[in-house]
Every structure is written in structure tokens, then in C-alpha cells.
């Protein structure tokens, strides 16, 4: 869909996903890396596939000239400027705009280009902290947690891609590029869902609830989310509404079929039941027999039977579970392409299916000499 659009990707890991998203949508993305960069790193390989790699060292004057030539032929520049560096000077919007008024410069930084924290250093953990996400993960009153696989960079890159395309859409009408200022801190806030509304509407600050979900009952009752099962954990929550009613009815039917003790579940009219007003004692009484039942179920069994019964809930999967998921294989999600060493690499494919087809990834990762000719739109 973005065929013919030239993207120059001069980002560090804060911006890798942005270029990957644009490449997945068909853009011609050139990834710049300094000589000696670790292009074997798993994160690097996963997010810079589908791009053409060009080695370029901003510390060298000759390479800065090469950069300018590449920028001249580009529609979008993705950058993660760190103040005071040669790369930041090269990617400066004012400098580039004077020479290339059609160029869109997407400046991706931890906190934004201006403001009291504009120069602050932040990696994933500081960004997840700054964006409020860590306050919502972990046991109540105990150490706030991040996800062990960095998420802030991905949130940022995803937002940066949207910003790039918003600016590109406007350029089609105006003929002019502009700068897009992306804040990683603000991008993480997207992950908070509607938690900020609790503060603004009720003056209540949501906090981490461990393995329980809060914010669903006006009584403040918490609902168990993770249930130990035979080979790990299952994510199951007592929902209300039409979908919740069916799930809860099917769970009870499954338990009944297995001869499990129903306890308080036996007398519930799921058509009338709602999580919005229940008390904690009521929740605990319902959850006790469910816990006993799920302790004897396996992850794959829950996934398959849950699907058959049209139940809400999923196993807590690890990457091995994901890799063997038939749903992903059926949709052609994984793509095998040759790596720079000739060995086959399996990647997440492009993230969307358009008109029935998932755009194929292009192999990347081996440095090339830039010979790109760009067709301007």
C-alpha cells in the first residue's frame, strides 16, 4: 500500500518498530546502522527485517554527505535524536527542511523535543515508569514491574508510524513535509487503557492488583485473573454481559460434565448476574470451585475446549506455546526468509492481511551500498 514511498530509518531501538510497520505496509525502508552494530541481536533482527541495511557512521564527514544524499531521496526520515550527537545534528529538522521541504522528519525521543525532561535519559524501564504502566503491574504495595520483554520501545515505534503517515497524508495535499514529535513517555500511556479516567472522573488512582482485576465493581471487589493449572496458568475472569453469561454457563456445564464440585456456582442465574455490584465475599465464593477445577486442566486443553464451548479465557502462553499455535500457522503469520548467513530465519510476518493477502517480508540484515532510486509521489 505504501509502495514507492522511501523511508530512511536512522533510529535506535526506540524507533525500530516504526520502520518495520511502514515496511510491512509496503514502504521501501533503508535502515542506517553504524559499522559494528549488533545486527545479530534478536530484537534487531526481528524489527529490522523487511528493511535494507546501509552502514553509515555519522561521526565521519563523508558518511554525513551520504546521509544527506539519502535524505534527499526520501519521503520520511525516522530518527531518535540524542542532543549533542552528530546523528542529531544531521537529522535536525530545520537543517533538513531548508534543503528538502517535502521531507517528513519523525523525531522520536523519550520525552519529546521540548520541555523540562526533554534531555532526560530513559530506557524501557524508566519509560514504563514515567508512563504509569509500572504502577499498574505487580503485587499490591510491592515492587512495581515492567514486562520482561521491553514494551516501551514498541509502543513508541507504533505511535511514530501513525504520526509519519498522518504527516504524509497531509503532504499529499500541501506538498510540504513537516516534523513529527513523538514522546515515548506519552506512547506508554496508551497502554494504560482507561485508567486515567478513574482519576479524572472519580479522583481514584488505580494501582497494581497482582493477579487480580480491579475497576469492574463499584464495591471495589477484585476478581482473580490467573489460575494455576496443570502445566502453568490460565487467564479466566468472571465477566458479565452476554458474552460473560455464555462463558460462565459453559464453564459450569464443563465442570458438571467432569463431575466437579460446583459450590456457589450451582445456584447462580447468569442471566441476572453482573460484576458491577458484587461484593468480595460473593466473588470469593464463586471463584473457589473454579480454582479447584482449573487446577486439573492443561493449557492446551483449556484453549481447545474453551474454543469449542465459545468461552472467554485463554492459557497464559509462553513463546513456545505461541510458536505452535495452529491459528497463527493457518493465517500464514510466520514467514521464513534467508538470513545474512544463509540460514533460514522465522519471523513474525507483516501485521495485517490486506485484500486477503499478507504482504511478504523482504530479507534484510546484510549491508548494501545505497543505490535506491526513489519515485516521488
Amino acid at each position, binding site marked *: 500500500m505504501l509502495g514507492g514511498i522511501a523511508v530512511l530509518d536512522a533510529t535506535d531501538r526506540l524507533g525500530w518498530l516504526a520502520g518495520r510497520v511502514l515496511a510491512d505496509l509496503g514502504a521501501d525502508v533503508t535502515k542506517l546502522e553504524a559499522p559494528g552494530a549488533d545486527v545479530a541481536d534478536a530484537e534487531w533482527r526481528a524489527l529490522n527485517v523487511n528493511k535494507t541495511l546501509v552502514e553509515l557512521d555519522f561521526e565521519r564527514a563523508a558518511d554525513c554527505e551520504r546521509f544527506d544524499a539519502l535524505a534527499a531521496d526520501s519521503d520520511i526520515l525516522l530518527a531518535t535524536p540524542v542532543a549533542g550527537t552528530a546523528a542529531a545534528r544531521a537529522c535536525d529538522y530545520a537543517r533538513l527542511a531548508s534543503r528538502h521541504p517535502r521531507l517528513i522528519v519523525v523525531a522520536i525521543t523519550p520525552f519529546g523535543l521540548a520541555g523540562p525532561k526533554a534531555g532526560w535519559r530513559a530506557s524501557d524501564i*524508566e519509560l514504563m515508569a514515567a508512563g504509569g*504502566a509500572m504502577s499498574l503491574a505487580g503485587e499490591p504495595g510491592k515492587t512495581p514491574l515492567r514486562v520482561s520483554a521491553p514494551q516501551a520501545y514498541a509502543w513508541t515505534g507504533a505511535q511514530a508510524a501513525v504520526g509519519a503517515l498522518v504527516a504524509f*497524508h497531509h503532504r499529499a495535499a500541501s506538498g510540504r513535509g513537516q516534523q513529527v514529535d513523538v514522546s515515548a513517555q506519552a506512547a506508554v500511556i496508551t497502554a494504560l487503557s482507561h*485508567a486515567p479516567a478513574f482519576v479524572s472522573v472519580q479522583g*481514584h488512582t488505580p494501582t497494581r492488583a497482582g493477579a487480580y482485576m480491579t475497576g469492574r465493581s463499584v464495591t471495589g471487589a477484585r476478581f482473580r485473573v490467573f489460575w494455576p493449572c496443570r502445566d502453568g496458568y490460565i487467564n479466566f475472569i468472571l465477566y458479565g454481559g452476554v458474552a460473560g453469561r455464555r462463558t460462565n454457563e459453559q464453564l459450569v456445564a464443563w465442570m458438571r460434565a467432569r463431575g466437579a464440585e460446583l459450590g456457589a456456582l450451582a445456584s447462580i442465574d447468569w442471566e441476572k448476574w453482573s460484576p458491577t455490584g458484587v461484593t468480595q465475599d460473593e466473588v470469593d465464593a464463586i471463584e473457589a470451585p473454579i480454582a479447584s477445577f482449573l487446577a486439573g486442566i492443561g493449557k492446551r486443553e483449556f484453549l481447545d475446549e474453551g474454543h469449542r464451548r465459545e468461552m472467554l479465557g485463554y492459557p497464559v502462553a509462553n*513463546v513456545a506455546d505461541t510458536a505452535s499455535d495452529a491459528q497463527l500457522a493457518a493465517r500464514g503469520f510466520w514467514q521464513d526468509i534467508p538470513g545474512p548467513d544463509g540460514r533460514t530465519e522465522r519471523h513474525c510476518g507483516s501485521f495485517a492481511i490486506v485484500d486477503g493477502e499478507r504482504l511478504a517480508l523482504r530479507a534484510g540484515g546484510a549491508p548494501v551500498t545505497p543505490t535506491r532510486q526513489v519515485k516521488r509521489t
Partner: protein
Amino acid sequence: MTTHALADIKIVEFGGYAAGPHIGKVLANFGATVVHVESRARPDGFRLQYPPFQDGKPGVNSSGCFAHFNDSKLGITLDLKNEQGMALARRLVDWSDVVIENMRPGVMARIGLGYDVLATTNPGLVMLSTCNMGQTGPRADTPGFGSQLTALAGMCNLTGFPDGPPMLLYGPYIDYIASTLGASAVLAALERRRRTGQGACIDVSQYECGLMFLAGSLFEYHRSGTIAQRCGNADPAAAPHGAYPARDGGWIALSCWSDAEFASLCRVTGQAELADDIRYATLAARQANAAALDVALAAWTGAQDAATAAERLQAAGVHAHPVSSVANLFDDPQLDQRGLWRRRPHDVFGEQTCCFPAFDLSDTPGEITCAAPLLGEHTERVFRQLLGMSAKDVAAHEAAGAFD
């Protein structure tokens, strides 16, 4: 008056909750006209099923959850089971550039609003369908909410301590990954339409989008068989790396990515001797002795307010930031400088505090144009002003139940 970047785009949203409406909100914030379609009988699920509610009382127009994802839009009601309501839905789609829906696969087609049908009268239509599993595959028909799909995608397994259970991420975390990526897909499809006139049918699986946020871990599993594990706040490339309790009851997140940065940390914390301690001389050594190092650092952080500690560490070139509570975000001077929180009048809240996207444009900045709509607030306006229907025609459709 600034021209908004997406001012020429018209979007109609069918569905509700998070994954679809968040796409429309972001695009509306940059000028797109977005019409959110509900029915009086079955309003958007976020209106009644999730707190917070004004004064704690559930009501279709008092939901902070609904409001958070639907600012800057027009809200209408249509009864799609009513023949005239469906006819108006078709007219609305014909008027639009983009349709966004997040119903279960097949529902839109079953009610007569499938892409193949819609494209016959609007061949340039871009239609994005987003759901848990995508439109195809053996589990395409699986019902699901994002909060649970986040567990299937692997994020929950990777949150927590090695010897403890997985931890919850807040809300339907994965929905917003899909909606953010979906927004890019919509814009890309519009670009193709601009060049070729061709519309697009876009199938976005929230599951697949979520996996993009774990692409590195998945790549490593395929490459080496390594199964990524939750490891608290540790990181293989930095030490120390974690969250430490502060004097004011808060926490501070900090990390050191080089021996030099660690030395700076030690100077700031008045523990310069730690930099010369062989137990902490290298990354590997600091990781091996993380428990003792964490105790030493916590002794310092525990005597500091989180904000002060972070400022001192940043001044010394150390990665650091307080662990912001959700309430802290409203007082964060950096977010204030960016205008992240923007208040707009709302008939029930008085004022709705809306959240601006994470990016802005230099020449055509975005805006929060209005608070979220009341149920059916703009029905007459949309059909009279945007679709050109007469007052008499609208009244007749109302009488026929089209807007129920």
C-alpha cells in the same frame, strides 16, 4: 485557522469497546470526521459495563471509560435491524472513506454490511476489521476480550518474578497495540487509494499485532529454542536495573548501561566505594551480586523523595525516573508542556479530561475538538448536515424507528 492533517477523511465506526474506537479517536484528533454508530437498545459496551461512572452510578452518558476513547467524534444511533435504519447505515457508508468495525468475524456480513456489499456502492472504501483472532483461521470465531488475549499473546507470562505467578497488565492491553497498528494500516490504505482509486479490505488480528511487541523473543525462540522467562525488573544488558522504594512512598526506576554510568550512580548516592568494589566491577559481576547491590541502592533511595532522586541522577547522566502513579501523570510537567491532558465541556462530567496522542505535528498540529458524545447526540446533525437529509425526512425515519 490551522488545517488539520486528516480533515478530508470521513470515518464510520461500527462496534465498540476499545480496539475499533481507539483507531477512530486517534484519527479524529488529527482532523478526521468520525461517526461512532451505536443503537439505543445496545449502546457501546464501554458505556455501561465498565467503571468509572460519574458519582459511581452506571449510566449511558456517565462512563469515563467510554469517554476516554471517544472524544472528538460524532455519536449517532441507528437500529440496524430496522429496514430504514440499515438503509441509513448504507448511506452513511457511501458517504465515508473508511469503515472501522470490531465485531466478531462474520457479523458485519451477516447483517448486510460486509465489505463485498459495501464496496459495490463505494468502491474506494477502506474497511478495517479488527478482532481477537482475525477474520480467518480455526479459532476465528473465538469470542474474547483484550485483557485475556494479552495473556495468550505472552505478555503476562513475561511479567512477574521467576518464582512467582504471572502478573496482570492493566485492561485490554493488546487492544491498543492493534488499534495503533490499525491506524497506520488505515492511513496506508488511503494513500494507495489516493494513487489508484482502489479501496481495501484490511483484516487486523489483535493477537498477531500483539505478537509484534514480542517479536524479538519469538525470533529468539525460533532461532535457538530459548523460551523467554519473566525475570522481575532485571535486564540482561544493564545492572543495576530495577525499581527502588523512595522515602515518600513512591518508587524510582533506574538503570545503568555501562560501568561509567554505574560509577556516576555511585557518586550521586554517596557510595563511590561501590564503583571500586570488585563485586560490582563489571556488568556480569553486578548481575551476580544484584541482591546486595539492590540493598545498597535502596538504602539511598529510601532516604530520598522519588522526584528529587530522579533529578539528581539525571543530572549525573544516569537513567532514572519516578514510577509515576496514574494520578502523577496529571501533574507531570513534561506531559503538561506537551498538552497531553485537554479538558472539554461535557454535559454529565462538567468537564472531560481527554488524552491527546503521543505525537504531534509541527505545521498541522492535532486537537481534541470535543468531549465524547452523549448517546445519539449527533444523530440529527449527521444525517441533516453531513448527509443532506431534510428535517422532514429525518423525522420520518425517527418515527419509523430507524434511530432506535
